[in-house]
């Protein structure tokens, strides 16, 4: 049944393209219905699957001579990310309600991207996963190159090149694993049980981890992300930061870490105090947290602030993964969900509510516009989103980062303090952006001239409420997701990872 999330999204593509010319309204409604249907299917699957253990969704031979199967399955981690995709997809359509330029194609690419993402989260055959992963890259390129803004060709090209380099690394690692195992299978569950030689894991792990990590915004391979997010149209930014970055983190956990758990073991020697790949990647994640936050602090462009904040928040996901603690991994998965929702929300405010009305994203120009008076709903949404983003209790970010930090205390105590500094800088940049964009120049003696801006439309309001609501619900009752995430991480698939730590 869950497989229908993929089919529905891909079915939407030809139907959209077959619509008669100029039927913009029908295209929007069709896209919305498709997104809602995908979400409904996920919800149904979520309700069915009580424990979060691995359940096969569909299985059929595909390329029997290579042992490649069409194997879809889901566990608690996939379910969490499917839910995220569904929510962001729906609100993304709502925030694209004003697209007039080639709307049919826009929504067709949009649905193709979503279909690919659903596919990645459900694939348990490595080749299948890789195929879906590649499918997701193409629509991203066109969404940015055709409907984007600021230096869109440059950004689209950069994004595509980074993605392809990453996929190439992943592909080399996967083929090597296939050959070394010699089991004539690409099945993730079977390969995960294969004891790869440790020296093989030692080079395959970093290769695949970095390959996926590029898409997760791993420092210093993150530079595609801010430019891509900024250039993309609002709905695409929401999907890019909200869901596509999660593809990378999901790949790190599901493929790199599950297949090659021994790759995280100690090297047996120390280079500059680093004793294993785990130390190296934890440090890179930490640098991402602090560096992303510091760069966000000095941006002039409102959208770049959010773009760099994504790097910082994804650093928490990667740091959580590197703790190799149950609680740290719980936190990392929850943080994927939480950041997906919040990045979507913040990009929606910046791109749709503010930029589409004021046609500027320059913070010093916005400062003179009194936006908190002109569009109070946007200001209120940004304040809520910002509060959630800095990790105030009561919102999803808090529970997630809390667990990551607890895991980090256990594994890298010193890093926790630095991550704490990252949180404080996070407060500072969110603050600065909020003050400048919405509450600026209220101290001026000049009488405020409120620019007449079009009011916030109903689809925008609904979209914002969906995202804020999701963050609050998970923030207040995280058990809703932890219920499926925790058993998933207890499954035998992660035994090699969690039981082998500290060697």
């Amino acid at each position: 049944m869950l497989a229908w999330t993929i089919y529905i999204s891909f079915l939407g593509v030809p139907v959209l393209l077959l619509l008669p010319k100029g039927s913009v309204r029908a295209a929007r409604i069709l896209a919305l219905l498709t997104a809602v249907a995908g979400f409904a299917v996920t919800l149904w699957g979520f309700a069915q699957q009580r424990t979060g253990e691995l359940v096969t969704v569909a299985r059929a031979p595909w390329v029997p001579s290579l042992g490649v199967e069409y194997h879809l399955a889901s566990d608690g981690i996939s379910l969490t990310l499917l839910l995220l995709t569904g929510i962001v997809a729906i609100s993304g359509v709502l925030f694209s309600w004003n697209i007039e330029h080639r709307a049919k194609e826009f929504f067709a690419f949009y649905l193709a991207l979503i279909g690919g993402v659903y596919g990645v989260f459900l694939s348990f055959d490595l080749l299948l996963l890789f195929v879906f992963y590649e499918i997701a890259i193409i629509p991203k390129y066109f969404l940015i190159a055709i409907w984007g803004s600021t230096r869109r060709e440059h950004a689209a090209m950069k994004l595509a090149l980074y993605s392809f380099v990453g996929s190439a690394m992943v592909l080399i690692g996967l083929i090597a694993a296939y050959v070394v195992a010699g089991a004539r299978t690409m099945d993730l569950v079977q390969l995960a049980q294969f004891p790869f030689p440790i020296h093989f894991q030692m080079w395959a792990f970093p290769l695949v981890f970095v390959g996926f990590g590029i898409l997760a915004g791993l420092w210093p391979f993150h530079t595609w992300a801010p430019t891509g997010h900024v250039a993309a149209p609002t709905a695409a930014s929401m999907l890019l930061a909200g869901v596509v970055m999660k593809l990378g983190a999901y790949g790190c956990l599901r493929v790199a870490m599950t297949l090659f758990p021994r790759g995280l073991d100690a090297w047996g020697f120390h280079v500059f105090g680093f004793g294993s790949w785990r130390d190296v990647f934890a440090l890179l994640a930490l640098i991402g947290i602090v560096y992303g936050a510091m760069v966000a602090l000095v941006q002039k462009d409102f959208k770049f602030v959010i773009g760099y904040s994504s790097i910082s928040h994804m650093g928490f996901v990667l740091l959580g993964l590197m703790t190799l603690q149950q609680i740290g991994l719980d936190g990392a998965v929850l943080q994927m969900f939480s950041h997906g929702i919040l990045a979507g929300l913040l990009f929606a405010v910046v791109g749709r509510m503010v930029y589409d009305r004021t046609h500027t994203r320059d913070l010093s120009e916005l400062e003179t516009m009194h936006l908190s008076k002109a569009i109070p709903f946007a200001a209120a949404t940004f304040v809520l989103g910002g509060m959630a983003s800095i990790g105030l209790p009561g919102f999803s970010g808090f529970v997630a980062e809390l667990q990551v930090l607890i895991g980090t205390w256990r594994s890298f105590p010193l890093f926790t303090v630095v991550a704490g500094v990252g949180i404080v800088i996070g407060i500072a940049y969110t603050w600065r952006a909020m003050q400048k964009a919405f509450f600026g120049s209220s101290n001026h003696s000049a009488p405020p001239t409120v620019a007449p801006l079009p009011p916030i439309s109903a689809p925008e309001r609904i979209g914002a409420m969906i995202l804020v609501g999701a963050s609050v619900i998970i923030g207040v009752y995280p058990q809703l997701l932890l219920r499926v995430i925790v058993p998933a991480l207890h499954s035998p698939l992660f035994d090699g990872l969690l039981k082998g730590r500290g060697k």
Partner: protein
Amino acid sequence: MNILPPISCLTIVPLLGAIAVLALGAKNKRLAGGLALTFAFLALAITLVLWHRFNPISGGLQFEEVRAWIPVLGVQYHVGVDGLGLLMLMLSAIVVPMAMAASWHIQERVSLYFALMLMLEAGLFGTFTALNFFHWFLFWELSLIPAFFLIRLWGGSERAAAATQFFLYTMVGSVALLLAFLAIFLCTGKFDFMDLAEMARNGQFLPAFAAISDWHRFTAEKVALVLCFGVFLGFAVKVPLVPFHTWLPAAYAEAPTGTTMLLTGTMSKMGVYGFLRILLPIFCVQLRLVRTPLLWIAVATIVLSAYAALAQRDLKRIFAYSSINHLGYCMLGIFSILKFTGENPSLANEKAATLNGVFLQMFNHGLTAATLFWFVALLEKRSGGLRGLDDFGGLRKVVPVLCGLMGIALFSSLGLPGLNGFVGEFLIFKGTFPLATWPASVSVLGLLLTAIFILTILQRVFSGPLQERWSQMPDLTVGERLALLPAIALMFVLGLYPQLVLGVINSTAMQMVQQLRF
């Protein structure tokens, strides 16, 4: 007996109120205010019922509710009150309607203003009843947001800087607090305050820390001391203690006066409450090691803030520094009971007296300081926003009722016997003299300085030559008199019959002292 869990209801009522005010009051300003006041009174009524049903003989927790919440993190929904918690609930429930009444003249975005006040009230109720760190921290931060926006959107001319400073100081404190509690959770696997206090009493704490003390060759004692400092920082900023107080005068002065009443009346108590409920039971051993410097920090807070108040010319800033001064006595009392007394029963009694004094002082200061700021609001309303010490003079002749009632509040702040302020300070000093003689003696200087600036206010504002421009100042209206009456009456009642409060808190104080015995 209970169909509805009383504490959960109490916390939800203001939240529902906030939603109702936002939803219904957007068009009609008076409706928004009236609705908000109704919900605030409803909360007060529930608190009164709790007070009535509270069993004063037991010093332990009552009305407890325990439910599963996030099992992975050891987080339960655990609420309950003892005498201290109940007293703080009562204080919040009394001060919030007062602050609303004092904000009646607000014109801009009225429904949002009152909704934020109700949210703040919910935050206070949650903070004073939650017994699990996660749950408590949620409300601790929840109260910060509305306070920030109340200052930021409705404050005076320097509001942006004041609000930012307020938020950043408190946030840094909160992050330190959070990291410390994460480390504690890591060592013990517990977030529940009661469980943690129990562990500390049984001496299971240091062994638990020893498990992680191999980091960087820290001993368990040092780890515990560092964590204790992290938690301390969070609360010290909130109270505030010198030298973490610099956000306070600006925030109090720039906030709209109704909000200042809430800040000083209730939010500053959150810090002191944190010391009593969290830091003292859990980190008793660590605090005892640094007792002497802590005592002198409290003395510095008392004396320096009183001295600073003397130098101010703005009435709101004077009362802001005076607030720091009054809470300094609470901190002096708290730190003095850390003294090791062994089995000496008479000193144990002194400790109980000190704690009773601290509780009373918290309540009394909340009531008195809120009332004083209310009077400043009334003066501002009549003077068109002026509130300098030298802007007035001889008001006694034109507005005798205002001056008379404000005089009562001023004398209560001074600690005149017969009024509420006296009893708390008396009990604190009675207890601290034998427990910490030198700090107590030096801090008497604070009392003297307070007397000087209070009398200065009386002289400059009420007596002296009348300035011509104020000769037409209207006196208090009947409505204002009626609104002020309960507060003033309560000052007399508590001054003459403190047993009303002492009866509720005494067993809690006794039990706390017993549990701190070493």
